[in-house]
């Protein structure tokens, strides 16, 4: 094991402290009060035509929550719904690992994913827990400290020593030094989640316009009146941009500088394995991994070494690197066979926090993008919050002051103040 271990999925900064943890716990209470139960039609807020640009998991979730609120939703997707990152991710619905600022949102998302499952949106959601492994005494100390903060932030976590980890993960390497376990983190099957949302939406909740490119917007002053597509204009009372890494391109059509850039992240999948050999979601050693509901093992891990582009080809360098790291965690799996390597494009923002809220300079445009590699897990919260942003933009609802405060740091145009919007289209 030549390289130092890396806790790449532990985002807590060195400045995270007890005060911030308590604030995170309080923040979750606010979000829960505002958004728990968003799945039920008691969340109705108003009428109007919403056009969602982008049919990934965030667009689909937003369309769903907006339809629950009573909006007439049309979703425009350039290619296949869920066909990009939404169908190429690890399936984690995690809270452990996030910054304290993001913990309350991801706790909300976890809760909403469960509500959706109970409401019949099948996703193979399994509350399997999540273990983040330490491979050195220093990492163990870092994780134990992080555990204290997560507990104060309201997330149940526990430290497991190496023998406890071994009981939970019988095939894990003897080199591990324990791990931090969160019993409430979950995993889901992206294809199933997308299919299920599509089927719910198609069942009278939304009109899906797929394989259709957005080419511009028809505007009047600071209001968007329609989304212009290859197949004609789609009239809108409000627009929601959920185009993942393509959001910058779409935003530019409205003169919006959305600071989103693409980066590749590669994933590897093995043949099905006989028994349940890995139950929780596992992170550590610079990778994440899980065993799917069907029995395949999958593992992946991106980083600054990856291609900063829309390229989704698999590379032998990454296959070798990720497999080496995977086998360092589970040496017993060296005989298991790799059947597929694939990749997706992550939408990164400069501060790794999403763009979620109303766009500057436009009365009726909201954005939900830039989830920086955590979009799948974030998506349920993103959808509920985006739908609320739409309601606010249409004047149907004023969010609680506490929620507004929490959303301020996620303002879509925070990285580059929008100049006078210049519009392409018509």
């Amino acid at each position: 094991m030549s390289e130092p271990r890396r806790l790449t999925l532990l985002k807590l900064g060195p400045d995270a402290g007890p005060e911030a943890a308590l604030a995170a716990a309080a923040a979750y209470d606010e979000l829960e009060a505002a958004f728990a139960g968003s799945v039920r039609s008691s969340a109705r807020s108003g009428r109007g035509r919403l056009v969602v640009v982008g049919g990934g998991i965030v667009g689909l979730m937003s369309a769903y929550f907006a339809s629950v609120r009573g909006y007439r939703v049309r979703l425009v997707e350039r290619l296949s719904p869920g066909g990009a990152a939404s169908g190429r991710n690890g399936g984690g619905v995690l809270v452990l690992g996030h910054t304290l600022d993001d913990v309350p949102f991801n706790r909300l998302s976890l809760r909403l994913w469960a509500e959706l499952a109970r409401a019949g949106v099948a996703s193979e959601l399994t509350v399997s827990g999540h273990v983040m492994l330490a491979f050195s005494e220093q990492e163990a100390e870092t994780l134990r400290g992080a555990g204290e903060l997560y507990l104060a932030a309201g997330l149940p976590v526990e430290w497991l020593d190496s023998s406890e980890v071994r009981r939970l993960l019988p095939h894990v390497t003897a080199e591990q030094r324990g791990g931090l376990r969160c019993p409430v983190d979950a995993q889901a099957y992206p294809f199933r989640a997308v299919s299920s949302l599509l089927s719910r939406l198609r069942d009278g909740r939304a009109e899906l316009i797929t394989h259709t490119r957005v080419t511009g917007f028809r505007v009047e002053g600071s209001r968007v009146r329609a989304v212009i597509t290859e197949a004609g204009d789609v009239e809108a009372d409000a627009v929601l941009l959920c185009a993942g890494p393509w959001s910058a391109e779409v935003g530019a059509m409205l003169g919006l500088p959305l600071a989103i850039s693409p980066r590749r992240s590669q994933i590897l999948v093995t043949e099905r394995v006989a028994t349940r050999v890995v139950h929780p979601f596992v992170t550590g050693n610079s990778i994440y991994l899980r065993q799917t509901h069907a029995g395949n093992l999958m593992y992946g891990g991106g980083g600054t070494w990856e291609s900063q582009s829309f390229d989704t080809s698999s590379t032998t360098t990454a296959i070798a690197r990720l497999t080496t790291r995977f086998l360092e965690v589970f040496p017993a799996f060296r005989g298991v066979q790799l059947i597929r390597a694939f990749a997706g494009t992550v939408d990164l923002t400069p501060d790794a926090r999403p763009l979620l809220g109303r766009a500057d300079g436009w009365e009726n445009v909201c954005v939900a993008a830039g989830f920086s590699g955590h979009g799948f897990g974030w998506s349920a919260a993103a959808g509920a919050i985006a739908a609320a942003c739409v309601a606010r933009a249409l004047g149907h609802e004023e969010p609680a002051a506490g929620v507004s405060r929490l959303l301020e740091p996620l303002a879509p145009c925070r990285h580059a103040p929008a100049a006078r919007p210049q519009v392409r289209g018509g």
Partner: protein
Amino acid sequence: MSDGPELIVCRCEEVVVREVLDAVRAGCRTLQEVKMATRAGMGPCQGRVCRTLLERLVTLEAAPPEGAAGLTKRLPVHPVPLGQLVEEE
């Protein structure tokens, strides 16, 4: 021996004609979308056996948009034990 709607299209995931047609009827328009909805093409052979039949079924039934990609072909070209893929020392 099954034929008609119960004919196996994808042997690896045991997906039959009926399921493929159901997926198309539910709104799937491309091979990739059918794969996402049914798991056809996701097994160990990665579509080597079922690709042709799937393409035919989807083309006939779904009228995929022009230029729609088929099932993507990815590494590895056949299954490889993980131990053979590690970085050189």
